[in-house]
């Protein structure tokens, strides 16, 4: 093999490593910058001394947002929407995916068509909005949860996964007298942990990051944290004024950064643990699906 490693090959390696290090930096620098700004001294920020390494240590911005009652409320709302929304979505998706994975079920093809058609044609913004308001869901937390109970893409990933479970296991359980509910709960679900973790992560990320539905359906005290952040960025939230000092603008910048960091951290912490699952899940869903 050594003989193959010509000069050209080494140059090639060097170029690739340079590109990859560039990619690493491009992906990481924005977060490092936000982190640095959120914990630097106000003076250093005013003088534009902060780049990627924090200048001095100052947790004032974090103290400020933690002291702000609406931040905690919004954060709690987001946790609620994420946990409850993901649970509902996992249950509903599983309940539909399992019957649809059985080809011998009558109407299976019809139901599949129903699902696939709705992936490409939908009511659009206004009919959906009018539906939610005529169901009186506007201004309730259900508006953030119920309309997103099933995502068709996740459903298809799960159907494909259920199809790959060997039939023999289920047949043995049927002979032993277990019904389909029992099989689903005691055999299929435990065997499908990787797939459920994958779509669970997608769903959790969706609920954690959602803000637009909050904007059009909810009251202020039900806002998720992303909408809270958007309002700070737009200057429609009063948070910046809380500082009330000469370097208000500077502190507003640190506060924005602190909100960005605190609202993003949970996802960044969660995802490396689930990464091994979702790569598999994505390739199953897209290549075979």
């Amino acid at each position: 093999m050594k003989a193959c490693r010509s000069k050209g090959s080494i140059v090639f390696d060097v170029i690739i490593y340079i590109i990859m290090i560039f990619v690493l930096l491009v992906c990481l620098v924005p977060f490092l910058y936000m982190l640095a700004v959120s914990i630097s001294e106000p003076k250093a920020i005013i003088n534009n001394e902060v780049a990627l390494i924090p200048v001095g240590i100052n947790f004032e911005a974090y103290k400020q947002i933690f002291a702000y009652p609406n931040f905690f409320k919004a954060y709690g709302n987001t946790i609620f929407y994420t946990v409850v929304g993901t649970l509902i979505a996992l249950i509903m998706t599983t309940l539909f995916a399992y019957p649809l994975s059985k080809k011998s079920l009558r109407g299976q093809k019809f139901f599949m068509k129903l699902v696939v058609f709705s992936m490409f044609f939908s009511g659009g913004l206004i009919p959906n909005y009018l539906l939610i308001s005529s169901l009186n869901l506007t201004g309730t937390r259900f508006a953030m949860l119920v309309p997103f109970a099933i995502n068709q893409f996740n459903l298809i990933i799960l159907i494909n996964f259920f199809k790959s479970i060997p039939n023999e296991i289920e047949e043995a359980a049927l002979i032993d007298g277990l019904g389909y509910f029992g099989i689903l709960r005691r055999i299929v679900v435990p065997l499908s942990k990787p797939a459920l973790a994958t779509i669970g992560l997608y769903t959790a990320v969706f609920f954690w990051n959602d803000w637009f539905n909050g904007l059009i359906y909810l009251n202020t005290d039900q806002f998720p944290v992303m909408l809270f952040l958007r309002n700070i960025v737009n200057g429609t939230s009063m948070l910046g004024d809380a500082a009330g000092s000469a370097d208000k603008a500077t502190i507003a910048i640190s506060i924005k950064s602190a909100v960005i960091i605190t609202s993003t951290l949970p996802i960044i912490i969660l995802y490396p643990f689930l990464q091994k699952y979702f790569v598999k899940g994505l390739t199953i869903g897209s290549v075979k699906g």
Partner: protein
Amino acid sequence: MAIYKKQHLHKQDYIPKSSFRKHLTRYWQLYAMMILPLIYFIVFKYIPMFGNVLAFRRYRPGMGPFGVKWVGFRYFKMFMQDSAFWNAFGNTIILSLLNLLINFPIPIIFAILINEVRNVHFKKAVQTVSYMPRFISTVVVIAILGEILSPSSGLLNNFLQSTFGIEPIYFMNDAKYFRKLYILTDTWQYTGWTAIIYLAAITGINSDLFEAAKIDGANRLQQIFYVTIPSIMPTIMVLLILNVGRMLSLGFEKVLLMYTPSNSGVSDIIDTLVYRTGLANQNYSYATAIGLFSGIIGVILVSSSNAISKKLTDEGIY
């Protein structure tokens, strides 16, 4: 018990048509599972679809989602003569074409390059970090962008000023930069993620092909051009066609977040127009008509590109 067993051993598709009752006694639990999801699909996916009739009916607030009186194509004629619509239509096409042209090839190149990294740990690290932006909310992405590009304190303007003496540029407010920023943030967010599919395809290439190329004296660049790229061409084609199909469904939320009065000339797309006329100005029927029009174009794009994909590569999404 014996009958039970026998039927199960002949599982797939062996159920005589006459015995629907038997079928139901055996499978009722499966049908019971579907009740709730089916109600969900009817209420939240299909009723809004029928809600599109609003485009042909006049709506009065408080009248329920289907309007009050048929008006035919009145609202369609209205938006066809509306210059704001044609402006949004043009912006949508330009932005999505540019996005396709730039953000379609980049993940392919990235996947090919990362596949050439020989150190497994470094490769894993780059992959892990490059997926990460996919998990960040659009709100956060645009907020970070705003901070980095801020004219008074942003990293980039500071750098430009201290190194080249360039006066601060109002990137987020300048219509000139809107499309570039839209596309660049998409590159940042989705390159690593989209590359997963191509990487999976590259991993599936028979290694004999590379060995043969090496024996024939191909260097690594030649191996990429004569083995890797031709081998993943089917995957590239399927994804290209699907991307063409989904072209018009741009990231509406991102455009909404990047929208400022000074860049509205280029940043108003069909979806933001629907949002503005529908929800902000409460012209429900008019906005539904615009939404329905772009929805139908979308369906035509998806189904025709899927049909082409099936014909060319035997693969499609349905």
